[in-house]
């Protein structure tokens, strides 16, 4: 059993490293096709000055050489510097901000999923009633409404009109996180509610549930311990990528609430040809994703005993 686990872990770690390497390589190559320079003041630079700057930052070398240097550097923990933020280390740039985005993302994922599961379960239990209609409507609206609309509405109602929460800024501790979290949580909430409702309806109508019900098991016990456990499995599949996406920030929500996250860097780094920030953001997102997928696989086994490592059913 122990050997099987070790083999499983070793294999998965190897796949994860391989996946990351492929992503790094493809991104690096694609990035080299980006037109323009990473210098924000490029319209004032002469050709001679561009040459000097390229030499300083090693950008005058052929792509393959830069690629090999970059691989060597990241293996030694050096992720390069940001040219947008005048020679700041990319690790400093992301390190200063990733915590904020992760906190908001995790809060939004947890809150959104829990509320979504509750809403989905209630909708399934109250199938074809006004409660079900309401929950379904909420899921549709929540899925369709862009988060910037939700963010501005929340800001207007709770901060500007009622004045119960801060308009924005990151200086009131947990209170500063409430509105951004709510804005970010609407989408996972709607997704979870929709998924759980569909799955629960199927599970609650299955034979084994009918059998348990016939044996006199309480409805709550039935739903929580038998229904929900089975309905959660497909939800876990989508929950991983959603959580990673939330943890890596949202440009719009972070800007609206003036919070120092990394959301903006995804687009800004590409638009400004900030090469090493693009790479670091890609690595961060990919690494989180492969780790979450790995954890999801493990979670499957805990929730569903039929799933075994390496597909072994013995």
């Amino acid at each position, binding site marked *: 059993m122990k050997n099987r686990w070790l083999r499983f872990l070793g294999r998965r770690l190897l796949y994860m490293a391989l996946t990351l390497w492929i992503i790094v390589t493809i991104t690096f190559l694609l990035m080299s096709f980006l037109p323009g320079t990473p210098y924000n003041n490029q319209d004032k630079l002469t050709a001679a000055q561009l040459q000097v700057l390229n030499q300083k930052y090693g950008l005058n070398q052929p792509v393959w050489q830069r690629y090999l240097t970059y691989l060597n550097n990241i293996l030694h923990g050096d992720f390069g510097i940001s040219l947008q933020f005048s020679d*700041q280390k990319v690790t400093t740039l992301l390190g200063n901000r990733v915590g904020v985005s992760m906190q908001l993302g995790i809060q939004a994922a947890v809150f959104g999923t829990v509320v979504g599961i509750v809403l989905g379960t209630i909708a399934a239990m109250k199938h074809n009633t006004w409660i079900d209609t309401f929950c379904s409507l909420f899921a549709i609206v929540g899925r369709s409404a862009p988060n910037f609309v939700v963010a501005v509405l929340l800001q207007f109602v709770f*901060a500007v009109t009622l004045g119960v929460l801060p308009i924005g800024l990151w200086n009131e501790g947990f209170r500063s996180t409430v509105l951004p979290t709510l804005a970010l949580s609407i989408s996972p909430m709607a997704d979870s509610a929709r998924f759980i409702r569909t799955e629960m309806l199927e599970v609650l109508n299955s034979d084994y549930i009918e059998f348990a019900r016939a044996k006199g098991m309480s409805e709550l016990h039935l739903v929580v311990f038998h229904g929900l456990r089975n309905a959660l499995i497909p939800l876990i599949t989508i929950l991983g990528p959603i959580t990673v996406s939330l943890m890596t920030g949202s440009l719009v929500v972070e800007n609206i609430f003036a*919070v120092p996250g990394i959301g903006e860097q995804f687009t800004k780094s590409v638009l400004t040809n900030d090469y090493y920030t693009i790479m670091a953001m890609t690595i961060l997102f990919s690494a989180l994703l492969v780790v979450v997928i790995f954890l999801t696989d493990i979670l499957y086994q805990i929730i569903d005993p039929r799933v075994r490592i390496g597909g072994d059913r013995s």
Partner: protein
Amino acid sequence: MKRFVSGLLTALLAAGTALLTSCGGTATASQASSAGSGAPASSAASAQEKSKVLNWVAPGEVTTMDSGKSYDVISAEQISFQADTLYRINEKNEAVPNLAKALPQVSKDGLTATVEIRDDARYSNGDKITAADIVYAAQRVVDPATGSQSANNLTYLKNAKEIIEKKLPVTDLGVKALSDTKLQFTLTAPTPYLATSLSDTLVSPVSKKFVESQGKNYGLNAQSLLASGPFVLKDWNGTDISWKYVKNPYYWDAKNIYFDQINVQVVKEVATGVNLYEAGKLDGAAVTGDYLTLYKSKPDLVTVQTLRMTNLEMGISSNKSLQNENLRKALLYAVDRSELAQSILNGGGVPAAGIIPDGIAVSPEGGKSVKDDFPKLVYTDKKKAKEYFAKALSELGTKSITLRLVTSDTDDSIKTGQYLQNAYQTALPGLKINLANVPATVRFKEMMSYKFDLALGGWTGEYDPTSYIKQHETGYEHNHSQWKSAELTGIVKALETSDGTDFVKRWAHLKEGNQYLLDHAVVVPLTQEAKNYLVNPKLKGYQTHVLGTPIDVTRARFEGGAAS
């Protein structure tokens, strides 16, 4: 209820703005709710009067706090809180002595200037500021090892260009310390704008000892910086969106600095900035779009013109049709700049008066501005435009012309492109404009390859109006149209050499260059950028300028307050 609903609707409009912002554009927002609620933050302001704390705003992150590396307005504005300059720009856009005791003493040939600096100036650690610190600062900017993207701004100093291109050592730069308080600048050519150039934080004093003690970390966070200006930077980790300044007790003019502390908050979303301003959390906010209408009659609104000119540039060398002067003139006269500035840019610009921005310089005789003194050559005359276009079609032997207009994919650029497309196609039947909205880097690459039809470009000069004329000089790298003219080269040469000691002649040549470019319609000036802010009406003594930073609050105070 009515107010709630109207507020909710405007909040939704602001949501649309957020989407535009997220696409990399400049936001234009509309959220009327709180704007109508009257004067902002008066109670907060009175509380602040006692504590002498200003809550200020920045529209984006600071790319650097290293005075030698700054190249953008946001960074320059922030650096000016903590880096002192030889000269300061006053309300009239003139350079006045600051760290320097008097205006530069220039030699008869205009090639050497001496500047005496104060002997009571100190850094925030108590160390004395000397002339050698200015020399080191300038050398550091042009040193290729520093990688300053603003190194070209010092090419008025002898040998700067050669040092930037690694042809000479930094020690050959045309600046030296004659004593602890006396500086000597050796200039490439007579430089009439020398004092204004020396108001730039690029040549703020930098302590060599301190820089060397910090090594590679110099300027990367608040701890690795040494202030020479009125405030000391605190709580900035290099990429923060909020930080603060505390008063520098060693500053030579500390008695005229009122605020003990200035808190700065980056707010990129206009609606959020306005809400924070109205809630009294900020004493200033950047505004665009419909907010300008809302605040039009209120004392809070402050508009500042900048040196950024937005122009329609033409690929004259690459497009045969555009080599026809009548076609270019049709493009010059067919566009309504007032409509563009007001309806499309929502006050984010004013109609261009010519090639050179208004406010950059004044006439030596009478002190008249560019707008008042230069002949009015940029205007709208659709009838005239039509006539020129008809002539162009006939000369080119065609019934229609199709041109591709490339713009950046920012909100304002897209809207301006669409406006130009519509304006030209309506005013000049037979002209078809195809729009291409691309990332700024792609647009710039096309322009620098000199292969394009039309491009929404522009120019931001520093302190010398000549650069706006020089941009179109034969052989200049940023002459995107590749216009070739011996006459214009002659004008630029005179501006860069002999005119340096004859300000009357210089002004005449600037006028001549402006006229030449517009007579031949080498470029179509559209707008001069304007920035709009809400500023707490109780804040007094701040300065706005076209040159340098748009708003200088370092010596501001709350009404009735006095510095101590």
